[in-house]
């Protein structure tokens, strides 16, 4: 299946198109943050509480910072956190899913036992404890890693069930009987099936990580000097932006994050429907 035709099929779904355009816009915003005239950690470089104007497109906040450029940095950092969290938790999820699914038996039971434990415990609360103790030392990368440690359980289950079904297929038996080493079987034969699934769970996981970072920021458990969607919102709340009806300030991170969440979700729904051949036939007519 060529990449070109895959993309063409995906672009027939309006959700994919909308999500793609919104994400493109947000990524562009993140990229131009590199050309910001201001340093996001410095306060009072501009007059405080300005209304939107040609000089400050979205106005300025009570910390004397330009809301537009602050938002650009926030999108960039939130995206980096989510990518770090997503990629590292994929490593754990794929490893656990592959080993549990392929080995079966006692290994499977033990691994799924741990996975279920992670699903059942209110992880948010454990994250709260951890974040509380190390918040001053956190940067974008470590925040992502911290989230990765907690965000793999559900997807490990999803991947495991995929491996379970692969193991029952004919080609697995052929490969084993013809003496293919386990590692080669797993990496050469299974990976093409696992990779798309891991990718579609990656998007969901990124969305989860961004949301969790926002939540931790709101309760004051992240490093407030790093602009993220969460800390932007937290600063606005700290300065009573709702009470003062400073909508340009409070709504900027809210609207941007809502756009980001919806775009990521639609992208993942669209891709996973494409990956599921039954729904694909309905949509693109079985090419």
């Amino acid at each position, binding site marked *: 299946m060529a990449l070109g035709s895959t993309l063409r099929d995906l672009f027939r779904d309006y959700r994919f198109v909308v999500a793609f355009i919104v994400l493109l816009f947000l990524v562009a915003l993140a990229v131009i943050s590199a050309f910001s005239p201001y340093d996001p950690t410095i306060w009072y470089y501009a007059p405080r509480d300005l209304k939107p104007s040609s000089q400050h497109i979205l106005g300025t906040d009570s910390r004397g910072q330009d809301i537009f450029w602050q938002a650009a940095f926030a999108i960039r950092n939130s995206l980096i956190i989510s990518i770090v969290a997503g990629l590292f938790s994929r490593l754990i999820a794929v490893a656990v899913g592959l080993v549990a699914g392929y080995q079966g038996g006692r290994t499977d039971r033990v691994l799924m036992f741990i996975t279920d434990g992670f699903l059942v415990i209110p992880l948010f609360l454990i994250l709260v404890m951890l974040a509380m103790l190390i918040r001053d030392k956190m940067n974008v990368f470590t925040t992502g890693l911290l989230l990765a440690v907690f965000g793999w359980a559900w997807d490990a289950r999803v991947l495991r069930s995929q491996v379970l079904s692969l193991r029952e297929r004919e080609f697995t038996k052929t490969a084993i009987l013809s003496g293919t080493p386990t590692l080669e079987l797993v990496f050469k034969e299974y990976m093409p099936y696992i990779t798309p699934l891991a990718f579609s769970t990656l998007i969901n996981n990124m969305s989860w990580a961004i949301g*969790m970072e926002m939540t931790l920021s709101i309760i004051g*458990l992240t490093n407030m000097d790093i602009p993220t969607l969460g800390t932007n919102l937290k600063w606005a709340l700290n300065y009573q932006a709702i009470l003062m009806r400073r909508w340009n300030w409070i709504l900027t991170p809210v609207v941007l994050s809502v756009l980001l969440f*919806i775009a990521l979700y639609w992208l993942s729904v669209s891709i996973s429907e494409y990956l599921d051949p039954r729904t694909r036939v309905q949509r693109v007519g079985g090419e």
Partner: protein
Amino acid sequence: MFWRDYLIPRLLQYFLVIFLGITIVFFIPRLAPTNPVERTIAEVRSRGQYLDPAHIKDMVDALTEMYGLSGSWWEQYKDFWVRLSRGDFGVSFFQFPTPVIELIKRALPWTVGLLFTTTVLSWLFGNIVGGMAGYAHSRGWSKLLDFLAMFVRPIPYYVVALGLLILFGYVYRLFPIGGGATIGVRPSWTLAYIKDVLRHAFLPALSMVLLGGASWFQTSKLIVQNVKAEDFVQYAQLGGIRESRIMFRYIIRNAMLPQVTNLALSLGQILSGALITEIVFSYPGLGHLLYSAITTGDYNLIMGIISLSIVAITTLVLIVDLLYPLFDPRIRYK
């Protein structure tokens, strides 16, 4: 067979999850690079209170004792379990000398009320509407609901709650912006007070029902669409059974079964969501208490709330799991 295959593994998991969860709660503060005692003193100082150097030593000793940090780790660990089994989490530091358990007892009814109502409402609502939408999946209203759910589903609890708060609390002042009841009104079983409590609970509950409902709706719709394609449905249709009876008794009932398991698995997340929602609306439950504990660095209170939540949630999951055979005749009769 029921005992060995169903009950024993679940009980084993129950105790192990609690054991591991509490152990993590115990060890995190002790493995962390900062000592809670030093941190508390630093926080008191940063608030501008003057501390006499001679008193600092006393304070360190008192805090070490209060946090259960005296003795070796093993002694502390054993002590922690003993205290936990008695429901003794020590005293709250920032609302000294109120015991932690007292504060939790005051907050608990609010959280349980909110959590129970919204979970039941969103589960039933999402499953029934989702089931009907799945049955009539080619109809316009079904597609419209599906489309709306696509907008609500990915938004985290916090943002939905904040959006509702801004819209209905500040822009249109239809509902109170925070608290569990009007301040200064004495709790009583009068109609006026109950109305007041419901008015305060409305927005927090709405945000949780919207989010939860959208997610149950989507899964239920998908499951029903699959069940509808099965042979027994076609057989029932050919047999001339009324459409509504097929939908509710044959399809939705079958589709709800996996949703019971899903409910058990997602209870932890729902609790986290409830705590976050409470923070947005300053609802006087555990979430709000946790928030004030975090902002004041009240370790005993934090550990108390988290330990209790872990025990409560795993117990609930166990109960839902054990009730499952009641809903599923296939397991019951085996």
